[in-house]
């Protein structure tokens, strides 16, 4: 009996895959991506799309399927986005049905949006149509690079649905047999009744596509793109461009790098500070431009700035001494140790500020400054 069901499921799967293959064969003659994005994180880029070109194929979740990936570009043939019409089986417990979706990625391979096939809209609970809220939730899920779905296999999700039924009681309190937080996190992030579609779409949007697109990008990456990436508000573009910079280009484009430093995320700031050649710090203007941000930047960046103090132009001491109260205990120790080893920079105004800080009892670490003042 059981065996019979298995064979039946297998047959239905084969039929489905064959029909999907035919659909794909047919659709390969279509030159333009069929579906405009329903949700799009880079609408300005999409608005400029004029040309489309098929650039490579992407293996689907099933080896029988190959998805064509298209590069979208503007009127001047400058690249903007990638997209792919994806038709893929969503299989639950041996039963499969196709899911139709158009996925969009930016030039470094990060998911940015999706579109739907009007004649094959997404459904939940087998037949209910997605609501606008469901579509928005799917977009939010797909934007999350670190979704809990990444850690899960289809089997995990299936097992979990069983495990969730088995509750254990401890001291009168009901807890989930599997980690409650995990279940809550999954429930919170997916469209209810469409777990498997969400799972499949997420893994397509975040699978091997990223590395494929990055490889493709490198095949045409040029100085124009470098400048454009450095000016972009998209942090993944900034980081990609920064990583490609050789030292001479970095020096040439330093003003742009400094601009990024002011407005970007902590992780990229740290990358910039690490990449900056130590000899550049000797330049007073360079040193000042970075250290002037000290008050505004996050605590991890502050640490790295202070770690570079030994390479920096000594004039930064005069501004840093005004930010003692913004330093953590260890950061303050780094600064005071530097002063102890470079007493020539202990001028009258620096000393006065140190004394003032030592007396500021509302500053938790003032005792460190007080000890420094006493011993120097």
């Amino acid at each position, binding site marked *: 009996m059981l065996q019979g069901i298995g064979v039946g499921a297998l047959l239905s799967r084969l039929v489905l895959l064959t029909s999907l293959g035919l659909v794909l064969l047919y659709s390969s003659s279509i030159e333009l991506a069929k579906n405009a994005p329903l949700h799009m994180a880079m609408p300005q880029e999409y608005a400029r799309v004029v040309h489309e070109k098929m650039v490579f194929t992407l293996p689907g979740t099933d080896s029988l399927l190959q998805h064509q990936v298209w590069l979208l570009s503007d009127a001047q043939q400058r690249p903007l986005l990638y997209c792919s019409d994806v038709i893929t089986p969503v299989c639950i417990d041996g039963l499969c049905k196709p899911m139709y979706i158009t996925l969009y990625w930016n030039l470094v391979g990060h998911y940015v949006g999706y579109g739907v096939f009007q004649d094959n809209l997404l459904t939940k609970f087998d037949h209910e149509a997605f609501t606008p809220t469901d579509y928005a939730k799917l977009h939010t899920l797909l934007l999350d690079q670190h979704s809990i779905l990444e*850690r899960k296999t289809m089997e995990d999700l299936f097992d979990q649905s069983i495990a969730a039924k088995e509750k254990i009681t401890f001291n009168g309190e009901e807890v989930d047999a599997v980690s409650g937080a995990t279940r809550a996190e999954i429930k919170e992030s997916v469209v209810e009744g469409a777990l498997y579609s969400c799972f499949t779409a997420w893994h397509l949007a975040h699978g091997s596509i990223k590395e494929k697109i990055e490889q493709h990008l490198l095949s045409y990456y040029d100085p124009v793109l470098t400048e454009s990436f450095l000016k972009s508000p998209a942090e993944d573009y900034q980081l990609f461009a920064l990583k490609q910079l050789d030292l001479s280009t970095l020096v040439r484009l330093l003003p742009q790098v400094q601009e990024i430093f002011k407005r970007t995320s902590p992780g990229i700031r740290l990358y910039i500070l690490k990449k900056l050649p130590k000899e550049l710090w000797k330049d007073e203007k360079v040193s000042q431009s970075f250290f002037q941000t000290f008050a505004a930047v996050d605590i991890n960046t502050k640490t790295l700035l202070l770690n570079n103090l030994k390479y920096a132009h000594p004039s930064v001491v005069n501004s840093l001494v005004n930010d003692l109260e913004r330093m953590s205990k260890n950061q303050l120790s780094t600064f005071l140790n530097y002063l102890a080893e470079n007493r020539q920079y202990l001028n009258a105004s620096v000393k006065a500020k140190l004394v003032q800080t030592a007396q500021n009892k509302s500053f938790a670490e003032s005792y460190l400054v007080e000890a420094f003042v006493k011993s120097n």
Partner: protein
Amino acid sequence: MGRFPIGKPYLILIQVSEVKLFLSILLQITSYRRSNLLFFGQIRSTQSQAMKNLCRSFFYLLFLLPCTIFAQKDALIEAESFIDKGYWVTDPQFVQQMGSSYLMAHGMGTPVKNASTKVAMPAKGKYHLWARTKNWAPGNWEAPGQFQIAINGQKVNHVFGKIPNWTWEYAGEVQLRSRELNLELVDLTGFNARCDAIYLSKTKVDPPQGGAELAEWRKKTLREPLAPETTKTYDLVICGGGISGCAAAIAAAEKGLKVALIHDRPVLGGNASSEIRVHTLGIYGKFERILRMIDTEHYPNGSPEAQKDQEKRDRNVQKYTNIDIHYNWRAYNAVADSGVIQYVDAQHTSNGKRIRFKAPLFTDATGDGWIGYWAGAEYSYGRESVHKYGEAWNKWGELWSPEEADNFVMGSSILWRTEVAEQAQTFQAVPWAVAVAKEHKATAGEWYWEFSRNDLHQIDDGEEIRDHLLRAIYGSFSNAKQQPGNEKYRLQWVSYLLGKRESRRLIGDHVFTFNDVVNHTQFPDSVVVETRDIDVHFQRNLQDEENPDFLSEALFYKTKNYYIPYRSLYSRNISNLFMAGRCFSCSHIGLGGPRVMRTTGQMGAAVGFAAAICHKYKVQPRAVYEKHLQEYMGTITAQQVIKP
């Protein structure tokens, strides 16, 4: 006898007759002879040291007693040695940083029951009073942890805990009308007030505030001998009773070795213990039989279910009569001569006694790699440059492995848990937590409550990391309590022990890296097998600084089987040192997969069996690989449970 008014700086106490004092001292001596414990408790004053000397000769005592008593001018009482700790907890986590175990009032916002002890002072009269303590969240608010000292039931009019950093906080002068004292620590807030020690002195000279100077002063004041007075000898000394240490002990014991298992907590299991409550992950490899004795169910992290596995684990390790479990002993030194560890010294976390442990073989299962560190073993800390071992994964770039090395290791966690009461519950405002928790609201914790920052070292700054997480928890819970619907929530349990993921990694003959996972490298000495994803964490605020700094994100590299060779489980340059657990020989990324506790348990078991080969042939760990590999691998393979 009667009650006397108390006022700062004088404290008038009940007067005791000289005769009573003399009798009490005689009683102490009798007691000391019998049980090696002081009758009046664990006062570690200069007088108590004198008592030891006096025990040697009663006549000597009669001559010396008066001058011994009246010549002494001070008494140092270690808080952790209090006879009755009430509901204060002993915290030995930061001994190496701040100098001592200490007592902490971990009441989750409700003041805890007083800790108390009896003290026999050298003489009555006026004394200056200090307590070594710390305001653990200083700022423009009332200090979170505050306490008072009561002497013979009367509170001294000084509130401790208001000065940042570990400090001898001076409380003024007290008048002692008796030589017998009942000292109490009176918690005022329930929010982690802490007391390292109390010092009473006739002279007003501040003790040294910290560092080597304080350590020296402590030794001198307590008249501690240069070396521990007791020496114990074993076939194998294992430091750290987490899952890897337990597995090592069991494996070695089953092969007949006499094993010392030194552990600084009252229960075994480390991160898996009922005190930290992380469930064990990973596979059993070839050691299912041993690991099932000590692992956990897959309970939700932080669940009180951890208790059931705790009882199982302690019971199972205790049944080995040749494992000498030293609960509540913390190693503080390891001395090597020509690359060979001669001994490890450990101290009891409450009574301060010390033991020297000698053995031909040692295992560092401390997690932080302390034994290797003290003995001079080579070690690494931080994230290697991507170029060092070629560990790039383009998908995550810098988040995975940076171009330039840094110290952004995975962070430590404090798990916590709430429950829903029948009635509405209040939770007071915690202004001292706002700077950390900000607007974040939560009624439960999980593994991703994790803290790492690049100016903080996971060992050197452990106390600050723990305290930061406490602020995150109390602050986020307080925020959640303001939300409608959360009225009945109350804190059920908050750990005060750091669940650490990563710190020092001792370097062995093989450094296990990402490549060993990617390539599924099989070694002739593969003793550990794992299938778990590589799972390395980073702080969420690196991507968006609006995120709370105490939440992390995980990066997963999915994989099939990978193997860890035996050569990653002994030190490259300390010839008789094994390591098991997260301080094994690996890179930052290499640690990402096998850092979970069934895998570290496999390492422990593999080390235990290697120690047995070393013992049998009187050789050191490297020789097991070089000369006895076939026999060793045979032992390992024989462990595998073949299921029908």
